[in-house]
């Protein structure tokens, strides 16, 4: 214990010796670099709250006094593009990530526990799927969905998401299940619990960190997806909010106030989601980074 404390004390000592005079340098550099990086986002944020003529006149100025006109214009559009899109986005994202978490946790559990060559082959085939670019399978998927009668429907987008992201879920869950001792399941089985009960009451709660990573990553990817909803939902009114942003630029080429307000509103849900789960986000990435 004393050893550890000594080490911790040694580190700031070294740092202080090397640059006592320049301790202000790092925070100042860090803030400047971050500010440059943030500039494009600032320009959007500031201009959402400015009237159109002011955006053209002084795009970089702070919005003063701020106006909510751009936002209300998007929210009160007569075609309800934003609201229809929001409903579709929430439906598609919520259903997809719920189904994906359940399915890939179960499949990951199976692949981590089952013996023999077949599960190994299945895992390899699944992981190849991580590399398939969506553009490659877009046309055949529309054929499959047309056969099932699911083109231009939310269910069609959900189904294509589920198939496409199962490999990612399995990738996360398989590794995680392996860290859970088999003995736990055996004990539950000895106590008379069936396969499903053992999984749902013993294993699934232990998988919470893995489930958090899967939910968060897939949540953002599916919310932000462009190609699938664009092609599967088609041009019918009310796509997803992400496709809505694309539609909005088509209509108001140069009316940045309206376009930025649409983007701002479309991004708020996913930003709130990210800020709420920020820790798990970093843990999900970190888990991968340390495992290699």
């Amino acid at each position, binding site marked *: 214990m004393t050893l550890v404390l000594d080490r911790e004390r040694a580190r700031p000592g070294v740092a202080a010796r090397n640059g006592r005079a320049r301790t202000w340098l790092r925070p100042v550099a860090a803030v400047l670099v971050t500010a440059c990086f943030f500039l494009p986002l600032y320009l959007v944020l500031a201009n959402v709250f400015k009237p159109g003529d002011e955006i053209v006149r002084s795009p970089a100025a702070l919005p003063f006094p701020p106006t909510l006109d751009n936002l209300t214009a998007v929210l009160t559009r007569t075609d309800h593009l934003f609201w229809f899109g929001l409903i579709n986005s929430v439906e598609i994202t919520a259903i997809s990530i719920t189904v994906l978490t359940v399915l890939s946790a179960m499949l990951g559990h199976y692949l981590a526990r089952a013996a023999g060559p077949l599960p190994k082959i299945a895992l390899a085939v699944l992981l190849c799927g991580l590399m398939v670019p969506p553009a490659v*399978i877009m046309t055949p998927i529309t054929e499959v969905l047309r056969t099932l009668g699911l083109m231009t429907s939310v269910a069609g987008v959900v189904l294509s998401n589920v198939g496409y992201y199962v490999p990612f879920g399995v990738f996360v869950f398989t590794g995680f299940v392996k860290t859970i001792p088999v003995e736990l399941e055996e004990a539950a089985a000895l106590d008379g619990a069936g396969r499903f009960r053992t999984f749902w009451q013993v294993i699934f709660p232990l998988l919470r960190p893995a489930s958090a990573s899967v939910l968060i990553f897939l949540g953002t990817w599916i919310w932000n997806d462009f190609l699938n909803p664009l092609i599967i939902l088609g041009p019918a009114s009310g796509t997803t909010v992400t496709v809505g942003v694309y539609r909005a630029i088509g209509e108001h080429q140069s009316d940045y106030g309206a*376009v930025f307000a649409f983007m701002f509103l479309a991004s708020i849900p996913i930003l709130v989601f990210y800020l709420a789960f920020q820790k798990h986000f970093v843990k999900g*990435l970190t888990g991968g980074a340390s495992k290699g």
Partner: protein
Amino acid sequence: MTITSPPSRTARRPSRRAPLAGIGHFLAFGAPGLLLYLGLVLVPVIMSVRSSLTDENPLHRSTRYTGLANYRELLGDPAFHRALGNTVIVTAIVVVVPNVLGLGVAILLDRRGRLYHALRAVFFTPVVLSSVVVSVIWQALLTDDGMVNSLLRSAGVDHPPGWLSDPSIALYSVASIIAWQMLGFCVVVYLAGLQGVPPELHEAAALDGAGAGGRFRHVTWPMLAPAVTINTVMLLITAFKAYDHIQVITNGGPGDGTTATIAFSVVTTAFTGNRIGYAAAMSTVMLALVAAISVLALRFLQRREVNL
């Protein structure tokens, strides 16, 4: 090694696993996920390869088997060659730039405290935003009379570059925008890697007389190998998939396909040009390239990790 896995334990394994294995376990837990993957990824990939051997086109009455005709056409198609070259350029920029800048930013932000925590969150924000949103932001900044050029004009530059309208620059602009969006991802992964380096190693190296540069080269950099692998693989996948940014920012132009990558050409050939068979041949070539590059990259990167 023998201590952690005594033979008696391995011998007992099959019988101890019995309650978990078996056909019932497969049907209940394995089959649903595998079937969906099969029907919506694997079968479509096979359908795509099969359709690459035909002249499939929704505007034609019937589809004929044409053998390798599509592939022969690809060989002599200048548009495809350009898309291939564009993909290589985009991939190079998207893999190298966020990796290098991300490591720099991570080193800069590798300190405890509220300030550094908040700055990290800022870098990660674009990763969470939709690529459509990021594209629209940069389009507003970079169009000919956009904010960047008005700034340049007021600073006395008479003819600022046409970031998105000059055919010789547009591709680099689009690739840089993707790189900007992915920077935060690399920063976070490198920060995790940096925090995994035990301080003892730095102290030992410092005692042996290594300067800051030496400590980075001989201690930090080798310890970051897994982080480099994750970032590079993630960026490779992102670069190959690049479609949204191109569709929204330049729609493949300016001019004829100057920013069209393979992913973009596949989608436009299939859905705008209706040449599904020809697009499928393109996707098959793309799939082969992705597979080859993924295998090569993983081999190379993981060999680096093992050699530590």
